[in-house]
């Protein structure tokens, strides 16, 4: 069978269950694809080739013995390098964790292993998930498979690029202010940020604990449902985990949107969004209307405070969370000073962290410092309440909201690195969902100048079934998500850059 890497998870899963392909064949096809395009894309920090083959052989053996296996058994996946993997180094694309190997698995990893998914490796990211382009990786930037001169978005850029380039069938990322949805939009993948607490954060290296949430990248809404099914659910090891039953997400894909009420928040349709992005979102709204959805306008009046509140709360939490990197228990340690413990810790951190991480730690420490706490941190936590109330009111009238995921298509590598705040504005439409803890999904909506445009769907807390249903119905009526990037292979002479 030609080009197994083009299959979706659900297609491959059927072929595996009918034993028309083996897990080893499927895994080898992806490892070969990685070998072909990885020199251009650079999605992975670590590829665990031998272990992946071993896992695949085990799946094939179990299947030949007649074992009952789930839909992810034998499916090759990639994992953002912020998720702890027992025995496989987990770097957060930071010098400070470059040689750190976790002695335990994150809960999502344990669940994927139970599901017998194949882990191909760990993907590149903005250092400690801080960034919107994957240029803040301490190791190398990842390139967008649709245009190698452009960024794949971030911070989960490696996970997005791996799925877009056919290097993995699905992947996991983490979304603190849009770090799954924005790279999903820029790479033509389906990218889901579940409700805060729906997926365990145990073993996810902490950035901003009240905002972080793990979510999947796939090439179809149906695949996203399969991935979420495997990772969602209560975990006693995460005290913010929601203890309510997990619904059947695949069963929620009813195939239609008739009678569903979809709100268009006017604050998300303002100047600053590229006309090509706006046109795609308008077209998506028309498509959903023609499929029977009832579309109406709504207002989220405190949207304009979202970015400011986020860039107080997230750095504040980051400055506390990253205090643990002291060069004592694990991680990089400075060799250069002979002073006190505090000098050693300060030197270790100065050498180990990159510029954006330092910037955020400083911003957070400032916002929490004596004299500024009320004006910044406490104020931001109150604004957070207002933003949540905006959504509560909107979801009384609507089942879901629709907007652009990102104001622009993928930008050029280097284009925004010199202006931190311009980079922060990439997340203007994704940040409010994290502040309110609700769920959001970016789906391929079409193209602008040959580059993918993401359409964002927002749902209330635990509204994932509704978002997946709308995205799936949209995908049954459209072909955008089926388009894959023509990523040049480094093996073909004369095409590599």
């Amino acid at each position, binding site marked *: 069978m030609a080009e197994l890497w083009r299959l979706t998870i659900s297609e491959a899963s059927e072929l595996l269950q009918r034993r028309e392909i083996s897990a080893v064949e499927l895994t080898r096809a992806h490892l070969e694809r990685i070998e072909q395009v990885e020199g251009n894309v650079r999605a992975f920090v670590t590829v665990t080739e031998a272990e992946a083959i071993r896992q695949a052989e085990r799946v094939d053996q179990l299947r030949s013995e007649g074992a009952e296996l789930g839909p992810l058994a034998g499916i090759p996946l990639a994992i953002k390098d912020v998720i702890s993997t027992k025995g496989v180094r987990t770097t957060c694309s930071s010098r400070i964790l470059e040689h750190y190997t976790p002695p335990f698995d994150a809960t999502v990893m344990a669940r994927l292993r139970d599901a017998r998914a194949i882990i191909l490796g760990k993907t590149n990211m903005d250092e400690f998930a801080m960034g919107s382009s994957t240029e803040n990786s301490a190791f190398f930037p990842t390139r967008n498979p649709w245009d190698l001169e452009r960024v794949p978005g971030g911070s989960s850029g490696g996970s997005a690029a791996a799925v877009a380039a056919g290097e993995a069938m699905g992947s996991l990322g983490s979304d603190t202010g849009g770090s799954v949805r924005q790279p999903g939009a820029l790479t033509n993948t389906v990218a889901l940020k579940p409700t805060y607490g729906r997926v365990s954060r145990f073993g996810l290296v902490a950035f901003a604990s*009240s905002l972080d949430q793990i979510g999947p990248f796939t090439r179809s809404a149906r695949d996203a449902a399969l991935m979420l099914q495997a990772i969602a659910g209560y975990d006693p090891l995460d005290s913010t985990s929601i203890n309510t039953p997990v619904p059947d997400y695949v069963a929620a894909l009813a195939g239609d949107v008739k009678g569903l009420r979809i709100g268009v928040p006017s604050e998300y349709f303002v100047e600053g969004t590229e006309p090509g992005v706006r046109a795609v979102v308008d077209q998506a709204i028309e498509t959903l209307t023609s499929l029977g959805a009832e579309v109406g306008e709504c207002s989220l009046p405190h949207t304009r405070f979202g970015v*400011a509140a986020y860039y107080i709360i997230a750095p504040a939490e980051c400055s506390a969370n990253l205090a643990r990197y002291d060069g004592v*228990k694990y991680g990089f340690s400075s060799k250069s000073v002979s002073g006190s413990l505090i000098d050693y810790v*300060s030197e270790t951190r*100065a050498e180990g962290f990159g510029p954006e991480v330092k910037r955020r730690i*400083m*911003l957070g420490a400032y916002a929490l410092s004596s004299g500024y706490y009320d004006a910044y941190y406490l104020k931001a*936590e*109150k604004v957070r309440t207002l933003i949540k109330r905006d959504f509560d009111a909107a979801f009384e009238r609507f089942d879901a909201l629709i907007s652009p995921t990102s104001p622009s298509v993928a930008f050029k590598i280097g284009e925004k690195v010199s202006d931190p705040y311009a980079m922060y504005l990439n997340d203007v439409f994704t940040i409010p969902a994290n502040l309110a803890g609700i769920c959001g999904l970016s789906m391929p909506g079409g193209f602008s100048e040959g580059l993918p445009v993401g359409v964002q769907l927002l749902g209330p807390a635990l509204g994932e079934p509704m978002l997946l249903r709308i995205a799936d119905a949209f995908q049954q009526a459209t072909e955008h998500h089926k388009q894959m990037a023509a990523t040049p292979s480094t093996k073909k002479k004369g095409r590599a850059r």
Partner: protein
Amino acid sequence: MSIDRETVDHVARLARLALSEEERERLREQLSAILEHINVIGEADTSDVAASANILPMSNVMTGDKSRPSCAAEELLANAPAQEDGYFRVRAVLDEE
């Protein structure tokens, strides 16, 4: 609102970051520029609004007082930059005087 060098030095000390001269100057400029944007938050009317630290309707989640398997000490020490006799080795916390 711009922040001065003293504030940068103070916050760097709080954050345990031994920043270079050049980094301090760049951060002074960048943090001032970022704060200028962030200050829009002062315009939000938050009178009579409670702060949300966590958006979930839950508080004081307790776990049972039960022992469960944990990592072995050797595994946890394996990542340490310096260790001795099963302990993390650190520099002197107090000066010898």
